């Protein structure tokens, strides 16, 4: 079970992208001769696992450690730190070195920043007087392919940093990553952006092109035709709703991380007490590829069908005599058995959560909030959740949903709920509330909301959704069509112009631009309704959708659904700062003062 996904079917050559990153890492390690101890920032180790096998690291005489406050215990005299350029991590490195010095240990230190060196981090080294003791380099890992059609920039905190701290470093990284893609796949001629951060990224991208142009002579036809950039800020409603696709639900309840999950072995039918196991989740698993995007209700049916047909085959096999070729067919089917078992186990485990009344009640409430017709019911529901001291993040999730759809709460309610939260969960959450307010996610109402207008204009609530044979993206939330994907839908079909009025109601500016560096094909105007959707060699043209601040699995499913629709001539590829769920996204705002 390879955890590193197979990318051969990707619409662009993501394999080469991954190989480049792997090569770069290995060359860094090769250049540091002999035995070494590599200390990896926790957040990075997931990324690394998608790029390189641990065995390959061992071949390069590397012992792996995680970066923490604890001093490093190792025999190696060479210590290689691989860290994101996060200020808070530098303290650890400094304290390690100080600790070694005080013990009289002489070591060589190498610090490699991902994705690039940072003046601020190095400043800390200087202040701590360890700058002279280390060799500083960079590992330019700006993105990793998570799957055939998903790229992650691995910027977990991008949204919070931009919205709360005003630290827009991640925007530069995102632009850089896109620009890097352009170096491999050609300058992207059409760019559409919505949201403050997105428009800024488009702007930085243009700057980068001016400073360091993608050489247009190398690539005749750009492989990616359109770039759509969206801020998470534009649509905070969608991630706060519970995802109802198979993959989305897995993430909601069991946390999918870098294309895999860690579970108790017992869930997977392995009878070993307390043992954890890692379950890969990517398109290399054929069955998963088939069912990941379906509404969970349907997944249960599909699995049941498959199992029944297999059972039938099996009974035939044992009762009647079969020809050799029939036997062969059967054995072939048997090959998919481990996958069948795996997903049946997972689905069963999931249904223990989905059948809980609390979950159903919650879904109900989310729907009511999105409908935005019964303010008081929603308010009381949330109030009661606080009184029952349900897990804080669950409450915040609903609160954000509630506040966003109402453009904030009236001052009286706002202050009341805040007070109840502080009383129930402790005053240390003042910082959390402050963060949410700064980000505009839970705030005082100042103007009247326009959610109803948006909802109606974009047909976000779809009645009578047939989850088994869906004809609209609303199936991913059983009746709510994600706002973000509605925007993408429109941007692909006809650009921003037709929905300009609605865009104005959503936060942040929008922009639409054409870029050239290509004298070659003026006909690449294809997205504006012209039927020239297919490239000359018959490939479908490609749209890159970038989410700044994260995207949920359900939204990705909706996009896949779109691109599979008849009359849709585009392949879609998704890039995101991070795969998020309402839970993980909300967590980034939770700050414990204590």
């Amino acid at each position, binding site marked *: 079970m390879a955890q590193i996904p197979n990318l051969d079917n990707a619409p662009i050559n993501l394999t080469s992208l991954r190989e480049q990153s792997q090569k770069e890492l290995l060359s860094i390690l090769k250049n540091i001769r002999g035995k070494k101890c590599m200390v990896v920032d926790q957040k990075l180790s997931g990324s690394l696992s998608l790029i390189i096998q641990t065995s390959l690291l061992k071949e390069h005489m590397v012992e792996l450690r995680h970066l923490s406050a604890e001093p490093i215990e190792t025999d190696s005299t060479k210590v290689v730190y691989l860290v994101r350029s996060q200020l808070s991590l530098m303290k650890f490195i400094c304290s390690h070195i100080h600790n070694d010095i005080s013990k009289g240990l002489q070591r060589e230190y190498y610090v490699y920043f991902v994705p690039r060196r940072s003046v601020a981090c190095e400043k800390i080294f200087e202040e701590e007087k360890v700058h002279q003791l280390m060799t500083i380099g960079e590992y330019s890992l700006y993105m990793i392919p998570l799957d055939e059609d998903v790229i992650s920039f691995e910027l977990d905190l991008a949204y919070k940093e931009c919205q709360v701290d005003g630290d827009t470093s991640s925007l530069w990284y995102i632009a850089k990553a896109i620009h890097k893609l352009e170096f491999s796949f050609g300058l992207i001629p059409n760019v559409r952006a919505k949201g403050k951060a997105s428009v800024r990224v488009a702007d930085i991208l243009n700057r980068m092109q001016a400073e360091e142009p993608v050489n247009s002579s190398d690539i005749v036809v750009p492989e990616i035709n359109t770039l759509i950039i969206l801020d998470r800020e534009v649509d905070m409603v969608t991630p706060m709703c519970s995802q109802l696709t198979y993959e989305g639900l897995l993430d909601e309840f069991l946390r999918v991380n870098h294309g895999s999950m860690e579970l108790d072995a017992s869930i997977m039918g392995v009878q070993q007490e307390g043992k954890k196991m890692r379950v890969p989740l990517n398109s290399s698993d054929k069955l998963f590829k088939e069912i990941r995007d379906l509404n969970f209700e349907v997944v249960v049916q599909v699995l049941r069908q498959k199992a029944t047909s297999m059972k039938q085959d*099996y009974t035939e096999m044992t009762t009647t005599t079969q020809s050799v070729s029939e036997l062969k067919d059967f054995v072939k089917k048997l090959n998919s058995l481990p996958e069948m078992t795996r997903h049946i186990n997972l689905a069963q485990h999931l249904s223990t959560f989905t059948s809980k009344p609390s979950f159903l009640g919650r879904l109900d409430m989310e729907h009511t909030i999105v409908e935005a017709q019964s303010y008081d019911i929603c308010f009381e529901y949330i109030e009661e959740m606080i009184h029952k001291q349900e897990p804080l993040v669950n409450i915040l999730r609903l609160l954000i949903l509630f506040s966003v759809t109402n453009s904030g709460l009236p001052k009286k309610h706002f202050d009341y709920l805040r007070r109840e939260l502080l009383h129930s969960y402790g005053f240390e959450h003042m910082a959390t509330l402050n963060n949410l307010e700064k980000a505009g996610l839970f705030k005082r109402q100042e103007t009247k909301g326009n959610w109803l207008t948006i909802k109606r204009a974009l047909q976000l609530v779809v009645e009578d959704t047939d989850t088994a044979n869906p004809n609209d993206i609303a199936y991913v939330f059983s009746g709510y069509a994600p706002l973000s994907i509605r925007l993408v839908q429109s941007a692909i079909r006809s650009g921003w112009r037709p929905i300009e009025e609605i865009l104005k109601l959503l936060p942040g500016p929008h922009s639409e631009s054409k870029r050239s560096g290509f004298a070659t094909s003026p006909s690449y105007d294809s997205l504006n309704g012209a039927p020239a959707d297919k490239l000359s060699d018959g490939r479908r043209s490609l749209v890159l959708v970038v989410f700044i601040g994260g995207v949920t699995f359900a939204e990705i499913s909706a996009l896949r659904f779109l691109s599979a629709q008849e009359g849709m001539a585009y392949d879609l590829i998704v890039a995101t700062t991070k795969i998020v769920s309402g839970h993980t996204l909300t967590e980034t705002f939770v700050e414990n003062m204590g």
Partner: protein
Amino acid sequence: MANVSVAAEWQLLYNRYYRKPELYPMRWKHIDLSRNKVACAPFGGPIAVIRDDSKIVQLYAESALRKLRIFNSAGVQISETVWKHPGGRLIGMAWTDDQTLACLVQDGTIFRYNIHAELVEPSISMGKECFEQNVVDSVFWANGVVCLTESQRIFCVADFKNPKPHELAEPGLEDSAPLCMAVIEPQYVMSGNVEVLLGVTEGGLVVVEEDSVQRVETVGGEVLGPLQKLAVSGDGKWLAAFTHDGQLLVMPTDFSEIKFACNCESALPPEQLAWCGMDSVVLYWDDMLLMVGPIGEPVRYLYDEPVILIPECDGVRILSNSSMEFLQRVPDSTVSIFKIGSTSPAALLYDALDHFDRRSAKADENLRLIRSSLPEAVETCIDAAGHEFDVSRQRTLLRAASYGQAFCSHFQRDRIQEMCKTLRVLNAVRSSEVGIPLSIKQYKLLTPSVLIARLINAHQHLLALRISEYLGLNQEVVIMHWSCSKITASLAIPDATLLEILLDKLRLCKGISYAAVAAHADKNGRRKLAAMLVEHEPRSSKQVPLLLSIGEEDTALAKATESGDTDLVYLVLFHIWQKRPALEFFGTIQAKPLARDLFITYSRCYKHEFLKDFFLSTGQLNEVAFLLWKESWELSKNPMASKGSPLHGPRIKLIEKSQGLFSETKEHNFESKAAEEHAKLLRIQHELEVSTKQAIFVDSSISDTIRTCIVLGNHRAAMKVRTEFKVSEKRWYWLKVFALATIRDWDALEKFSKEKRPPIGFRPFVEACIDADEKGEALKYIPKLADPRERAESYARIGMAKEAADAASQAKDGELLGRLKLTLSQNTSASSLFDTLRSSFQGVS
């Protein structure tokens, strides 16, 4: 015929023709080579001339000061300077690969000049020993030098770019000075270090390397006599040596055999000995030049003026007072066309053109004769054209080629075009104003980009630009160099004017580094110009550091912010931070949101106190309050602050301080109240810990405190906390119900339910019981639920399907009924289905 006159100028050496066309008549006046030391650079490079201080010369109407003058190959003066260096006599002078003139004087100092006769700093010293012992001889090569001291020791600088002198092995010559010296360049030696050959009086050679000395007394069985003069061939493979008895010996540099020997009828050693390409050796005595080949009678040329031999890869240039000539073997293509009586296809083609021009029908006849070999004939004409220095002959040959090409179908048509291109470039640089007489072979070896580098070095920018444009090379180098030279040379031009002049040219080249030009302007003391130039740099990563270095911090900050690259913003931020007093720094960044936010982010992590100063000075009291509040938690994390210790005092004080700051502004009423409550809570919790002697209260929330009190059975304390913080009835009920369920005090719960009608109904009681899995207890409260739907759902949750259905039907809610059915069925049948499925497959896998 014309052909005859061409060949008439050739000399035959055995079976090879040699020619000696004049490249230039020298344009200089009153230069007598015999009075001067002269250094000529290969590849048609410049000529440096300085009065020879080892000879007694008569001064005519000239200053007694020695002047170093630099000419191009046509004798046009490029520059001059007065030589007034200390250090004794000039021992050796030569041009290096990058056209720097290296002048070695007696005390071992090497002074370096560029082509404009400007001294290149720093001068190189050959070391202390040289300084003490005096240098007597030296040999230069492309990028290095070896010198011999009076005490017969040899020192070497292998690379002028990294001038570290070191001594080679001691040759062990005792007192007698060597007769002659030559080197094999490092690139031709296996070890990669230079090899020095010395001819000694005892006879034979001494080969000196870095750490070994080897004597060569016999070569190929023959004993070598004392050698008077040595010359190593351009490829380092051959050595020509002139013996004491007037013989010229040629041998490979591994000294395995003597390739040939030739008697020169003069025991006097030649003044100069040089290789002419790889084919022959040229010897020069006072008035005679002798060219010796492996076979056949040597060729003699007579001169009535002194000459200097300049070896090139394909011949030797001969410089005299009045002319510059190029002695070369006539190329095969030229021979085949112009040799007297030649009937080669190329000769016939050339002839055919002549007939064609004269409208003679014989042209056609000629063409018929060579039809089958026409392509070769064309090729030969093109090749011969390339080797010509005479422009009209180039033209005739190319016309012949083009004429022939018209009749052949399979010929690479761009060959002629290519040759024309090359010749245009060559003719341009050969013009006497530029004075670089490159042959085509030298040009190919030198490469166009080096040629361009040499042109810009000689300040021939326009020509360099034209050539690079013509050849499709990158013009950036040229324009960059021009801009820098222009700045250096234009001290008198005001900034704005000069900027326009520069921009005019810089615009020609996309992607050129304005920052580099600006940096040069800054170095030349033109800070304002630098600032104007850097404005045009599109790459912020280059622009910003430069702006900082020229003191334009505010512009730098604006540019960095614009670029979106936060790393650059940090760079500027730290720079200003260091440079300006704190208050001014605060003022600067307060007006710049991105810089301010980054500063705050950094300081939050690393400079807490400084951040507080910032917030105070900019009047953001609420932010200070938050910092203080946070600090109060830091205190609690302190391991010294065990629960209930006096440290709670300072903690509470900090919180109260922050509360005071919050209350300064109206907008932070809420925060102020919260801080106040927090302080109060801590006090109460502290008291509770004292009274209960259990350290379980501090830092839990108000609700948790109440629950803990109830769990401990301390209802009075719970009530007190409730009133103190005005906890609402609703919350109170939930808290108390859940707390009682936690300790499973079902009686107390029932009592509580009967205290009065619960303000939020009986749902909390039902839920608490169901959560605790006490169906019996739950059943006490379910019937009391007011809403039939809630009743139905509660029944359903404890699995009482019938009662649930009853309640649902009472609610007359079909949808609810359906949902209940679904939940119930999912719970049981769905999972049981999975179970059966799984068990049926266990046998297979």
